[in-house]
């Protein structure tokens, strides 16, 4: 036995050496769970996954579902990866709604009934073209009822022309009034550019810097991209790029009434007010402050949780927050032909079907 060469043992041991590299731990905002832990059917969600893979819902590239504070579904499609940044299109608008709430919390702004003319002295000329423009308030912008002429849903001409101009805020404010402010609904992403400029004037920092300081840092959102207009005003119309999980975090903050890891980021009162019904412009949806809600319409009634609200991005980046079910559905898609209520909307409705079937 003495002469047994231990070399073979060393080779064996050498082959067993391993590297204890510390991979960066995944940013774990939520614990992971399976649908069946919440009386949902795993199989039905696997079928749903298969349907998305088969492109039955057009061009969906991400789906994240948070149920009872746990992540029960996260998957990416069409070469999308978890860490990829995506332009969330006009879902960017709700960041201005959040920023206005924070500006009130921080004491920069007293009321959303403040006329925007008081806050935008540099656009005196544009606001003087019609005396009624001076009565446009922040609230009117938040509810898409500024009265400014705007075509975004049918032709997208205005959004395109705005983005080709040098000063986007000037372009929006320069539009003629076609209704008395506060009366008529007209979907207008450009109005968020005005809100972006207002935040800039109130806080002396751009909307993106303000949101980064007050929101993104608190939510540990480190990877983001936010474009600006040629003058450097943050593009609140459609310029924010986020990962799907970080997009979901914004919804989670609102679901938790503005509380994030025992820190108040946004006041509960503002969240309640901004996500509550302010007016109902359509049979199928009502509006808060840039947030949408389901109505009691016959088609939508099964999904009409009293407090549910959502933001439908034009290309399919949708975020649904349903406080009653403690549910968030965050969808990413790249659809350019369906408008606000395309495949992402249908996908949410199906998820609610699965949800209710199993209750």
């Amino acid at each position, binding site marked *: *036995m003495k002469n047994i060469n231990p070399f073979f043992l060393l080779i064996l041991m050498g082959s067993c050496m391993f590297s204890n590299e510390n991979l960066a731990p995944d940013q774990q905002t939520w614990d992971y769970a399976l649908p069946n832990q919440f009386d949902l059917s795993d199989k039905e969600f696997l079928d749903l996954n298969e349907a998305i893979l088969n492109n039955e819902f057009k061009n969906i590239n991400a789906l994240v579902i948070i149920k009872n504070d746990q992540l029960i579904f996260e998957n990416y499609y069409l070469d999308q990866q978890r860490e990829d940044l995506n332009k969330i299109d006009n879902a960017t608008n709700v960041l201005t709604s959040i920023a206005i709430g924070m500006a009130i919390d921080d004491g920069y702004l007293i009321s959303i009934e403040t006329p925007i003319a008081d806050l935008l002295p540099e656009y005196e000329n544009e606001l003087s073209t019609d005396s009624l423009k001076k009565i446009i308030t922040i609230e009117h912008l938040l509810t898409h009822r500024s009265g400014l002429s705007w075509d975004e849903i049918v032709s997208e001409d205005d959004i395109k022309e705005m983005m080709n101009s040098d000063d986007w805020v000037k372009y929006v404010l320069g539009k003629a009034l076609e209704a008395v402010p506060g009366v008529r609904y007209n979907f207008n992403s450009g109005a968020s550019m005005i809100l972006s400029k207002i935040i800039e004037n109130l806080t002396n920092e751009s909307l993106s810097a303000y949101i980064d300081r007050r929101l993104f840092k608190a939510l540990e959102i480190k990877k983001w991209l936010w474009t600006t207009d040629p003058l450097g005003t943050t593009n609140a119309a459609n310029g924010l790029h986020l990962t799907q999980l970080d997009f979901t975090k914004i919804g989670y903050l609102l679901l938790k009434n503005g509380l994030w890891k025992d820190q108040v980021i946004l006041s509960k009162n503002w969240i309640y007010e901004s996500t509550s019904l302010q007016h109902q412009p359509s049979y199928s949806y009502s509006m808060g402050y840039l947030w949408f809600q389901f109505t009691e319409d016959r088609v939508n009634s099964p999904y009409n949780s009293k407090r549910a609200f959502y933001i439908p991005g034009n290309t399919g980046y949708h975020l649904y927050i349903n406080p009653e079910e403690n549910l968030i559905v965050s969808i990413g898609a790249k659809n350019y032909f369906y408008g606000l209520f395309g495949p992402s909307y249908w996908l949410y409705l199906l998820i609610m079907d699965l949800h209710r079937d199993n209750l």
Partner: protein
Amino acid sequence: MYKCYFGLLLCFFQHLIIAQQSDSLTQFKTNNFIQYLEDKDIGWTTFAGFDMAPTMGNFQKQIRIDIALTLKKLSLGMTYLSLFEVLEQYVIFPNIYRLNAKHGGIILGISIFQSKWINGYLNTAYHWGQMSWEDPLAKEHVFSSKSECIKPEFEIIIYPKFGLQLSIKVGYQQMIELDLPRINSADFSGLFYSLGLKINLSNEKY
């Protein structure tokens, strides 16, 4: 730090190899060295086998290799474990990931009884390493965590007079510091048993 322990032990064994493989000019020195080890009751043992360890409610097979220096009734060495069986489950639903576990560490032992056919030992291992959820398709670690384990055990060696012996171990393992989604330390703590072969060199009398 554990790499230092491994390094020191490997250096020692490397020294043995060099000594054993030396040519005739140094054979005398080698013989003297082996004789010196024998005179000092220093030997070494190796164990290769499988642990059947608690893993998420079941016993799962782990490859286990121990190599230790012995001094009279005591032994000190290193141990290595790696999950052998493929264990996959939903982690981030609907994605299935594979559990990967590799640990290395030190093992201390003492001989507590000897008879003609059976020897008994009490060992305690402390090992640390990495556990991870791996994407089976991309072969990438999606989540990874350091983990540590304390493992007292009772070992019986059958047929101790031969260099190649049968080893049976029973013990308890307590996992600590595991931070991975969908699993926790308790999933890997509990009674275990182990079966393998042991080579006992140079101090068979212990």
